[in-house]
């Protein structure tokens, strides 16, 4: 193969600059769903430019290996991207975070191996960071994947002295890193560091409950970006530095947004283990104050919906699990034909990752202009005739507003209880993902429609057609 570009030449730097500009446009175009897809194409072009110009670098060989690895990777990536269900999107993103972080850590290991005579301080700092963050991201993402895929329990896994143990592991990792920077150049020290970082990655995700997953996935996203950026310093490669950092910034921002949407600090999410609070809260429905839950029938609900002026649908992850999105959209269209104003209220942490519910509804052909964010829809609930809660729980719990003992106290919620009438579609009286009772169900204007979300919606559609 003819090498066209020498590693030190300005040409490669310029080509990388083009890639960086493409990536920035890709992100910029995401500001509206109208041209977001075009942005992704521009990003793709940028990636092709970066890959092909790197392949043309002087000194690149091992073509057979490169091609085979690329083919395997492409096959895996394509099948994964094609097959994945939209409900499983969080797992997929976690997995991609993991493989990216793993690749960054491996590149760091290789560079350390090459530099037999020891590394300069900058190179060693970035090698250590890349190996450390990359490994944490790799292991953490795999655990997150396992939890979301329900291979590992989604409930927080805790043991006594956990935080102290985790901190000890992290400190050990950092100590090894410092010794490497200070000049120890032993292969095994770096391997030990990687091993400890992997252990830490597992330990730090294990105690985090399923409801906190949006925060964790965003954080792992940021980690992989930072690892890639550190790799850029190891290789003195600008495209890695900038692209990695863009991802780092994005992940950090989403992490903070998600934590804010749950009214918790990131530290609290990572080390607070929701589970401990939850263990103190009751597990059954408290009905001792004389209020009871009232059940209703699809026919009654159909009448209410058909004669309403304004209906707000509050979808939750339960709807997605039951695969009821398409039927919900049909129901909404049916009501719109009857002249009912139908909107969807989307809580920022609905689903298992930031923006997850929007994707699920978009897949069901719900137009995106019918989807309203929390701040936009909350003032409209007092004028709403019927709020239809489908498989959402914690994000509608009024306890978050006033009950200081509730684990979700202070979390911004959808003010469903301000609607004239609330219908909650739910499989059973089991508490939600956070394991807390929902006092919305005891409100006088609330009625419950029990059953599988999909079945219930199908029955509703039939009943609405009758009325």
């Amino acid at each position, binding site marked *: 193969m003819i090498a066209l570009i020498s590693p030190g030449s300005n040409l490669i730097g310029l080509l990388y600059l083009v890639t960086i500009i493409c990536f920035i446009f890709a992100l910029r175009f995401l500001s509206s769903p109208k041209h977001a897809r075009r942005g992704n194409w521009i990003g*793709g072009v940028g990636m092709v430019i970066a890959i092909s110009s790197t392949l043309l670098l002087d000194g690149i060989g091992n073509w057979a290996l490169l091609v085979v690895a690329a083919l395997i990777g492409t096959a895996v990536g394509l099948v994964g991207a094609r097959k994945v269900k939209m409900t499983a999107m969080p797992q997929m993103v976690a997995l991609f975070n993991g493989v990216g972080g793993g690749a960054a850590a491996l590149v760091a290991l290789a560079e350390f191996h090459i530099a037999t005579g020891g590394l300069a301080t900058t190179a060693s700092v970035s090698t250590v960071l890349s190996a450390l963050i990359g490994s944490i991201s790799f292991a953490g993402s795999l655990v997150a994947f396992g939890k979301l895929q329900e291979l590992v329990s989604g409930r927080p896994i805790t043991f006594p002295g956990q935080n102290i143990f985790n901190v000890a592991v992290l400190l050990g990792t950092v100590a090894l890193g410092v010794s490497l920077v200070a000049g120890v150049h032993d292969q095994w020290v770096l391997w030990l560091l990687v091993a400890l970082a992997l252990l830490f990655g597992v330990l730090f995700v294990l105690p985090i409950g399923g409801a906190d997953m949006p925060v964790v996935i965003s954080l792992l996203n940021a980690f992989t970006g930072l690892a890639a950026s550190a790799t850029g310093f190891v290789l003195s490669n600008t495209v890695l530095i900038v692209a990695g950092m863009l991802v780092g910034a994005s992940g950090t921002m989403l992490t903070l947004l998600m934590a804010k949407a749950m009214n918790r600090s990131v530290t609290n999410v990572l080390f607070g283990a929701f589970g401990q609070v939850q263990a103190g809260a009751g597990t059954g429905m408290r009905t001792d104050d004389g209020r009871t839950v009232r059940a209703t029938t699809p026919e009654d609900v159909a009448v209410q919906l058909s004669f309403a002026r304004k209906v707000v649908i509050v979808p939750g992850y339960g709807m997605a699990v039951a695969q009821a999105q398409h039927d919900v959209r049909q129901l909404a269209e049916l009501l719109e034909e009857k002249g009912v104003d139908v909107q969807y209220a989307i809580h920022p942490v609905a689903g298992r990752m930031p923006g997850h519910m929007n994707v699920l509804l978009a897949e069901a052909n719900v137009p995106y202009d019918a989807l309203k964010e929390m701040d936009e829809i909350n003032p409209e609930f007092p004028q709403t005739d019927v709020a239809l809660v489908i498989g959402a729980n914690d994000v509608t719990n009024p306890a978050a507003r006033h009950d200081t003992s509730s684990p979700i106290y202070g979390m911004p919620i959808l003010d469903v209880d301000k609607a004239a009438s609330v219908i909650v579609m739910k499989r059973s009286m089991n508490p939600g993902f956070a394991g807390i009772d929902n006092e919305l169900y005891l409100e006088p204007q609330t009625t419950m429609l029990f059953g599988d979300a999909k079945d219930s919606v199908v029955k509703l559609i039939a009943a609405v057609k009758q009325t």
Partner: protein
Amino acid sequence: MNLSLVIELTILALAIFLGFEVISKVPAMLHTPLMSGTNFIHGIVIVGAIIVLGEANDSFLKVIGFVAMTLATANVVGGWFVTDRMLEMFKKRPEPKKESTET
């Protein structure tokens, strides 16, 4: 500290601000595609994998480079296609069935 490191750090600092700036414009509705899109972007680590594997001259580096290249390719290809698949689904209301409040 040599000049190239100073330049790299400058670039890094600017990239942080640019990142926050660009991403703060992304609506919550598109946060999942944003995550998978940035997932695709961190696949840029493939450049590092190509350099490691392409320049590998012993079996240790070949193994490490091969695994890194496989992982990074899966990251790039999967990240891009899944983002494209998602963004394709976002559609506006076809024709207004009735005049509702415009956003």
